[in-house]
């Protein structure tokens, strides 16, 4: 799911500007981002590059990538790949927190969550999932003493609903429905 994910160069959607300022500009950029994402129906994970973007404010952040992630929550995921500027980081984070929409950030081998963090009950499940390209509830249950598959399944489902993970249906051996959970990025 994460291999060969296309890179969205945000600067290319900003109509020649290197500054993202405010809601109005944010909405215009959002429309272009949305059009692009919708033109890639089979793609579930998109990398976001901030190369060429000098700065953005919180409102712009909120109206663009964060809104995009929220729109496709549970269906598609978005991950920053070159976010280093501390002010920009702070602003993306503030926007993600406010909209209760997590966005992933990859820095080398580390994958972290910008924005809302999972509560204590879900944090371990998320960390387990982030270390693997894909995983199933049964695998997590096996790794934790006295964890039932139903419990593990419930945690992964919550993480998916909150936008931390993606998932795809598998046919279980039992004939029931099982899911494979994917990290984003």
């Amino acid at each position, binding site marked *: 799911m994460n291999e060969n994910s296309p890179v969205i160069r945000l600067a290319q959607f900003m109509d020649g500007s290197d500054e993202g300022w*405010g809601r109005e500009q944010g909405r215009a950029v959002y429309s272009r981002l949305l059009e692009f994402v919708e033109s890639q129906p089979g793609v579930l994970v998109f990398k976001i590059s901030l190369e060429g973007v000098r700065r953005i404010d919180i*409102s712009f952040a909120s109206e663009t990538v964060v809104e995009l992630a929220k729109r496709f929550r549970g269906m598609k995921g978005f991950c920053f790949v070159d976010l280093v500027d501390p002010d920009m980081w702070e602003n993306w984070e503030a926007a993600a927190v*406010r*909209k209760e929409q997590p966005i992933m950030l990859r820095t080398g081998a580390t994958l972290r969550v910008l924005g809302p963090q999972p509560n204590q009950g879900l944090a371990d499940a998320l960390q387990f999932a982030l270390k693997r390209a894909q995983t199933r509830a049964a695998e997590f249950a096996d790794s934790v003493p006295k964890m039932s598959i139903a419990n593990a399944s419930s945690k992964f489902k919550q993480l998916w609903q909150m936008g931390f993970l993606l998932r795809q249906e598998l046919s279980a051996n039992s004939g029931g429905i099982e899911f494979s959970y994917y990290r984003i990025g």
Partner: protein
Amino acid sequence: MAVTITFPSKWVDAATLEKTLRTFPGPHESQDTNIEFVIPAGSKIMIDASTRLLSLLNQLEDTSKRVRLIFEEGETGVMGYLNRMGFFDNLDDRVDVKPPRPKYSGAEVYGGMNTGLVEIARIDHKKKDKALPTRLTDALRNGCKHRADVEELGGAAWTIFAELIDNIFSHSETKLDGYAALQVYKQGKTAKVAVSDSGLGIMETLRPALKQAAPKLAILPEVDLLVEIFRQGLSRHGNDRGCGLKGSAAKAVKFKAELDIRLPNSRVLLVPGLQGYRPNTAYSYSSLPLIWGTHICFTFPLTQAQSSG
């Protein structure tokens, strides 16, 4: 019959402006259609007071009051400074000024040459000046160049100004312009950045939505509700749009800036504390004479304090 409001002969910042206005009948509320503002010799109006006064004067003319502004010291006094700041460039033509307004705009002639100030910039709803947050940021960085954290301050400042000004475009609902300006006060060791608009004000746009979403908050007195807006980032469009104001405050408090907010009938001074902003109740007032809009001023120290406040 006229209402005459006389300024004191001293430095007039936002707090002093409020004290002054409170001692006279409120200009908007007054039955009199003639309102006179007298600026005596020795009166030095600071940038936060100037942008609010400018907004008030333009509002009064817009409601068909006849407004007169009298500078007792003439062009040699604060009138000259205000001209340099672009006050008269933005003042409604119908306001009667004595002595007559300067023929040449000091802001136009000298504009941009003094790195210690940013002349009063009009925030025009029809046309966004994309360079304005950057101009304010550059001037602030220049004024604060002796701070060890000036680079971080510069990064944060752009976001603060961008958010405040964008709020004017998004929330104002008025045809009157907004204003932004910056002034470094070397002796006072501060830089003041003022952003004013003449719209409905945060409260008026917020309370109806809050009545539904958070009724306990909706009934709070204005000053208390305002403190909560900055703490929680509330917004009339649901929580996700309040992040701009709260984000700005969260950034500014790290640099120990004071934050002063004037709303139609109240004023709150927020000072940096160990856990973010807290209200300075001695300088927070309610039941003030009406000034439409939202008027915000950040006061940044030019140097970093050694101890935390």
